[in-house]
């Protein structure tokens, strides 16, 4: 059961823990093909959640749904106590850091791609921190020389890490990561896993391989066609 806190706008469950994402009876379909039915789960603040399931089961669509990119057939989503609606989606997205499975960094250099989101009114308070970029590049085993390179010249693994850095720079409290290490070699994969293991942020991490997120607090298994009720 959820208890609303009218002052903070957050929700707490019966044990008093902050619930930041609440998915209730969510049913999704792709075209006319049902993906899953009545999925229910909640994520508490700071939890690391592994989302797993076979290819085509709807894992990525579930994340798209949390961002309002895909409309569910039925069910409800709440983020930080706010129900996802056409009105609230814009403020909800500003609390989420998203990494797509195949990120598109747009045009220009890597530095320009990282700076671009800071031109949006929602992100102007933060501003680009050059020192933080350098330290994140080092952390994720990237050379800062890449900053001047055209994004189209990056390898899949470099692109994935640059997109991840872009999401981290926005300082969101919840991260939705769609197979963030799928194109990475072992040392880079470990660097990403270590970073998020040390982080306080709430994490929803899609992966086929449970090793990719060591000791998740919760595992959500998406099974195609299954009624999760």
């Amino acid at each position, binding site marked *: 059961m959820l208890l609303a806190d009218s002052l903070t706008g957050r929700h707490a469950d019966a044990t008093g823990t902050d619930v930041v994402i609440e998915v209730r009876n969510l049913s999704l379909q792709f075209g006319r093909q049902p993906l899953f039915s009545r999925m229910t789960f909640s994520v508490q603040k700071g939890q690391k959640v592994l989302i797993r399931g076979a290819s085509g089961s709807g894992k990525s669509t579930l994340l798209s749904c949390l*961002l309002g990119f895909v409309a569910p057939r039925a069910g409800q989503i709440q983020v930080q106590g706010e129900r996802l609606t*056409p009105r609230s*989606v814009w403020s909800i*997205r500003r609390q989420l850091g*998203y990494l*797509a499975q195949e990120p598109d960094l747009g045009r220009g250099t890597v530095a320009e791609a990282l700076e*671009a989101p800071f031109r*949006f009114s*929602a992100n102007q308070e933060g501003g680009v921190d050059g020192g933080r970029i350098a330290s994140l590049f080092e952390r994720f085993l990237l050379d800062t020389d890449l900053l001047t390179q055209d994004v189209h010249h990056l390898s899949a693994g470099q692109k994935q890490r640059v997109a991840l850095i*872009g999401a981290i720079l926005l300082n969101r409290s919840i991260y939705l990561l769609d197979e963030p290490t799928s194109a990475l070699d072992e040392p880079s994969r470990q660097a990403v896993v270590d970073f998020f293991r040390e982080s306080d942020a709430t994490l929803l991490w899609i992966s086929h391989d449970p090793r990719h997120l060591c000791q998740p607090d919760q595992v959500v298994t998406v099974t195609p066609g299954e009624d999760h009720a």
Partner: protein
Amino acid sequence: MIDIAPLRLALIYLLMLLPLSILLWYGVGMVAQVLLALLRMTCQLLLVGIYLELIFDLDLLWLNLLWITVMIGVADVSVVRGCGFRLSRFCLPLFLAMLLGVAIPLVFFIGCVLHVPNVLEARFAIPIAGMILGNCLRANIVGIGRFYGDIKDGERRYLMTLAQGATWTEAIRPFVRDAIAAALAPTTAMMATMGLVSLPGMMTGAMMGGAEPLPAIKYQIAIMVSIFASTGMTVFLAIQMTARQSFNGYGVLDLGIFVDKKK
């Protein structure tokens, strides 16, 4: 102006023999299409010529207005079909965008620059509207087609922008910018090379009709500026007027606007 006798006019069709032979020789497979287009062009222009003579003679305000409205309507349907959009979704907003985009430069040109008291006088309003509209049609097919096509093809980039916290206006801005640039590029290039590479139809027509070159050039300058203004306005208005209903409340493009969603 020297009137061309019907038989002499028929001579011009001999010029078609050469390109048609090339098409046949290389098996390009569009001979029938070319011949049909040629036939349509001849019939349409002859009928319009007869009709315009009548309209010019009558010079009735409502009839001129009706004719311009029909011209805009035909251009509207051509743009919607040319871009592969659903007529039911785009017909009305595009019509309004083109109506506004054509009417403002047209009224300004005839009323303020030419100082003609009746801005809808047939011999000015209809040919000038036709020239403006013809360019708007091409620009709109490029501009609107590019705007929605780019968002559809670049869906990942567009959604990533929304996920990064952009408002809908911020997210579509680069696509609007690219669409307007693409739509205006041909008119800009045409203006930059006018007189050097090409002598435009209106100017040459006026000179062949007996006008002195300088007055004809003044008309041409005015019409080019009107065309550019109209093109820019129409493409901008068309995007603004169609965009609200083409995206859902979450800022995601509704693929139902396309006749063929997979295309």
